[in-house]
């Protein structure tokens, strides 16, 4: 079971600051969605509204066809994992996992224990005794083993070391095969996670900058490398998001699909056409003027 998500004209103000500006989006059920954005772009604001942590004041949200706010069915089916402080969490890890059986309809305790073992979370300790990375791993374990129709991970990996993060990503892929659900994943670590995402949503300054499937996005960006004059001439009409020169050679990153004719022309000029990673697209589409 997986929930679909629709938001229309979602606008959020924090006093006078506009955190989200007329956000419209449709996230298909049963897929992993990467929610990408710079610091302060509005990712967490969007996610807290989807998780019913905040009430929508302008615009609307529909999850599985219903308004999620104070909706028993939707809230029960939503798990929101975020960076939490464990200083005042005195529960034993073993009890934390045990009691989730009572609250999450699809919680798989055996799987949770197997995951905790993989993540090397000490079961006999209390939550406040865990390191930052171990506590994040515990939260991620809860998120995965709850098997909620809507699972939201908001920068859930903070403090986790690289091998643990890798393990987490692999588990997401395995779990999606076994029990597909809608997973929203907000992150800065685009380069190491981009293979996880079925669909990508890039938010910038409170607005949706891009929303597409990962495959489609990879066809939307190109790098063109060759002699400086040829590259300049070829890319004159294209949307250049980044350029670099070294001696007489120039490389530009272009956003937008190339027509077949353009590709033939590039080949004729001896220009090298490459694909752009999601990370490059993200970095160069969201950079500020003064960062060029």
């Amino acid at each position, binding site marked *: 079971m997986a929930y679909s998500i629709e938001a229309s004209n979602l606008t959020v103000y924090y006093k006078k600051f506009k955190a989200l500006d007329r956000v419209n989006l449709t996230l298909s059920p049963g897929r992993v969605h990467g929610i990408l954005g710079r610091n302060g772009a509005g990712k967490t604001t969007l996610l807290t509204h989807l998780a019913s942590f905040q009430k929508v004041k302008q615009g609307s949200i529909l999850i599985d066809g219903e308004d999620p706010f104070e909706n028993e069915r939707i809230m029960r089916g939503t798990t929101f994992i975020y960076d939490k402080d464990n200083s005042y969490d005195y529960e034993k890890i073993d009890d934390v996992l045990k009691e*989730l059986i009572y609250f999450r*309809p699809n919680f798989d305790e055996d799987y949770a224990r197997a995951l905790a073992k993989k993540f090397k979370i000490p079961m006999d300790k209390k939550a406040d005794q865990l390191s930052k990375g171990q506590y994040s791993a515990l939260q991620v374990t809860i998120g995965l083993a709850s098997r909620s129709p809507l699972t939201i991970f908001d920068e859930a990996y903070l403090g986790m070391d690289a091998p643990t993060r890798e393990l987490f990503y692999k588990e997401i892929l395995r779990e999606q095969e076994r029990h597909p659900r809608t997973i929203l994943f907000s992150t800065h670590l685009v380069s190491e996670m981009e293979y996880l995402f079925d669909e990508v949503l890039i938010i910038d300054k409170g607005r949706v900058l891009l929303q597409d499937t990962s495959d489609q996005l990879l066809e939307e960006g190109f790098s063109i490398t060759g002699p400086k004059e040829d590259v300049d001439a070829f890319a004159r009409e294209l949307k250049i998001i980044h350029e670099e020169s070294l001696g007489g050679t120039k490389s530009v990153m272009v956003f937008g699909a190339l027509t077949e004719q353009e590709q033939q022309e590039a080949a004729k000029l001896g220009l090298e056409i490459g694909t752009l990673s999601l990370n490059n697209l993200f970095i160069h589409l969201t950079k500020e003027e003064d960062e060029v």
Partner: protein
Amino acid sequence: MSAIILTPKKIARLLFTEQLKWSIWFLSFMFVIYIGFLIFSGDSIASFIDVVHFSNGSISIYLFVIGILAMSTFFRYYINLGATRKNFFLGVIASSMLLTIAITVIITFLSFVIHFIAGTPSILDMANIRSSNLLDSILTLLQFFISSVMVYMIYYLMGWMISLTFYRSSWLYGLLSIAAAIVIAGITGFLWEGTHISFFSHISDLPVLVSILLSLLIIGLLFTINYRLIKDVTVKM
């Protein structure tokens, strides 16, 4: 095993169980202090104070603190588990009622146990009912029971109101809620003797029925305020 849906009833049961555990610890400590008080203070004081009157003030303050903790300890926990605000609110209301009743029952029971074992005054002695009239005794007990439950309930709801206001709004509104709580505690003191703050206590001689009705009104008002504060509150992360 099927999962519990976090209905008000289920939340109430879970909250009540947890808070009752705390309360038993609290009452045990208080009981030990009372026993120590009896042993070391000599006959002069022990002869005119029973465990109920000894503990009345501290139980109100204890419930006030528990009311504060209802928000800071449990709210995020249950919302994270998928509960709605409304179900949490109803769960807290039901559990607080059960808790105040349970504490009153426990303390009354303790009073009679000590009365029979150590010969200290009972609640009835404190009300100056020396007659063997059973009806008077029952009425006195009933009045004690109702007034205790209501006062405790008001203190619990006041603590919850203050923590809710600080949780939801700025410190200024938080301070205003403390001021409001002082006024409410004063009015409660006017209605029932034995609270911490009391306005016009020199004219406090209201018929019990009026006190009950006005207390119910205060409780209803606090329900309304607290629901208004929680129904669309932003959950802090």
